[in-house]
């Protein structure tokens, strides 16, 4: 069984600068980590491998420093990785990102299961996983909170949806996006870290991927960021301090009055 896990490296802090000209993110000088929600996809892949055998390949598109994220994934228990990196990929929206990843996945050959995080914590779109499935014409199961696999790659999954869960089944090859409920991601082991250091991770650009130049990077993106602004975070609220038990009633009444005033009651 071959599992592919597409991951994204994201800035660790929530303070990120934007390039005012292209409206895209400036990543230099910001500590980067594996998108926290991708860790659940990696964990799921490792658990499936432990139970059913197979190999796990990590793929990422990003700047050269995204190599670090791939090594971290290998340290956790993935087998191999490949980085899709080139200036020409820069400024890609979700369509162009999915296209580039798809070209990489195709180059990796046959696959039984692609596991993605629900979304990345920086872009926050959740579109790349489903787009990869569509471009590869794979069945797609999103928001998976639980899955059981029986050989050969037949999966029963629970989707976490509004107000409940949907149970679905699918035979591989398929793409799934998983959510946090799937399990706690493991930490890298010392042995894993050593192995990650020694693993040769190829870097593929447009030449290796044979991408269509009109479909990658900013030029290949159907959408354009035209304006960025920083919303005013703070609201001007009224502050009530409960100093002694006598204030409790007053504060509770304030809450009731507030709800009435906002037409909630």
């Amino acid at each position, binding site marked *: 069984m071959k599992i592919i896990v597409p991951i994204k490296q994201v800035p660790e802090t*929530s303070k*990120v600068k*934007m390039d005012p000209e292209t409206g895209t993110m400036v990543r230099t000088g910001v500590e980067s980590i594996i998108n926290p929600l991708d860790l659940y996809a990696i964990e799921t892949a490792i658990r499936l491998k432990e139970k059913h055998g197979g190999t796990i390949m990590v793929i990422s598109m990003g700047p050269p420093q995204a190599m670090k994220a791939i090594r971290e994934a290998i340290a956790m228990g993935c087998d191999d990785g490949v980085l899709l990196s080139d200036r020409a990929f820069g400024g890609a*929206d*979700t*369509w162009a990102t999915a296209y580039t990843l*798809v070209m990489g996945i195709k180059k990796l050959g046959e696959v039984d299961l692609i596991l993605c995080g629900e979304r990345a*914590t*920086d*872009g*926050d*779109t*959740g*579109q790349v996983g*489903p*787009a990869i*499935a*569509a*471009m590869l014409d794979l*069945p*797609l*199961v*999103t928001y998976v909170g639980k899955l059981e696999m029986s050989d050969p790659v037949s999966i*029963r999954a629970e*989707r*976490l949806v*509004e*107000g*409940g869960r*949907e149970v*679905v089944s*699918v*035979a591989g090859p*398929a793409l799934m996006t998983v*959510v*946090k409920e799937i399990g706690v991601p493991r930490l890298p082991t010392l042995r894993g870290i050593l192995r990650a250091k020694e693993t040769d991770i190829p870097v593929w650009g447009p030449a290796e991927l044979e991408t*269509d130049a009109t479909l990658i990077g900013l030029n290949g993106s*159907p*959408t354009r960021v035209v304006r*960025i602004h*920083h*919303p005013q*975070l703070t*609201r001007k*609220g*009224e*502050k*009530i*301090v*409960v100093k002694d*038990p006598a*204030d*409790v009633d007053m*504060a509770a009444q*304030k*809450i*009731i009055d*507030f709800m009435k005033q*906002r037409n*909630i009651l």
Partner: protein
Amino acid sequence: MKSTNNTSEIKWKDVWILAEQKGEKLQQVSFELLGRARSLADARGSRLCAVLIGNNVQHDDLQELIECGADVIYLVNDPHMANFLVEPYAKILRFLVESYHPEILIAAATTTGRTVMPYVSAQMRAGLTADCTGLEIEPESGLLLQTRPAIGGNIMATIKTPSARPQMATVRPKSTRVPERQPDRSGEIKHIDLPDSFFNSRVVFEQYISDAAGESSIEEADIVIAGGAGIKTAEGFALINQLAATLKGAVGASRPCVDHGWQPYAHQVGLSGKTISPKLYVACGISGAIQHIAGIQTAESIVAINSDPNAPIFQLADLMIVGNLFDLLPAVIEKLKENKS
């Protein structure tokens, strides 16, 4: 997967929304979408059309869609579509789009919308913007301006799709009011009959398991009462549950509570949980880490209760109560009950 999105030969017109049915019931978010899209259609001088894919669709529901702003309804009413399956949904939606050429297509940022929209936009090479909080027409160009929070809500980005069509976007549930019904409105219902091949799906739906009875999901609730680390124990959530039940709201939780197992993940609010826009959010014992705040920025009103006067959550609150929630919440519940009777 070559680019087939050639906008020059086709006349793209009309604004479309994807209405949503779940468990054979039309979802409220469908009307919110009509409310949101009506002004876009008016600005473009075009029709507003609703696509409804479902089963056992009631005539009253269709009438309500029309009275809430739909000029045309493209209806696929078929037993195969009793539940959401991405492949047939995408195939049908794509077929309709390629037959009628809407210039704008909007869906809800629900688990359904956020699954089918990227699937369709990827196949059609259309631009798609997720989770928009603002949509408007740029007067000069007539293009759809799509504004959405990114990077945990620290920035708002306005995005447009210059040439690919349709211009696609998902919008957060609860971010628009449901329009009032106008009984004198009329509209056209187009019944779309499709061959069985449209309903093929490699993913097989088995069953839907509803959360505990009466429990509403945090994305759809008007009122969310949320607990944080200040709740201290799983038992502490009893008060939160009680207040939520009294207000007919949903229960939310900050990440530490979910990590401790006090609440299931479906209730987690914030960057690694749900982003919500209720009318009222009551944060009880939540300090307000940036990751949590990212999930509630678009809430209409926020009440924060915390014993720490310096809790960052207060910066975001419309009403801040510095005090012990274990004293305060019972008093609020009591008053609400008095209020009812």
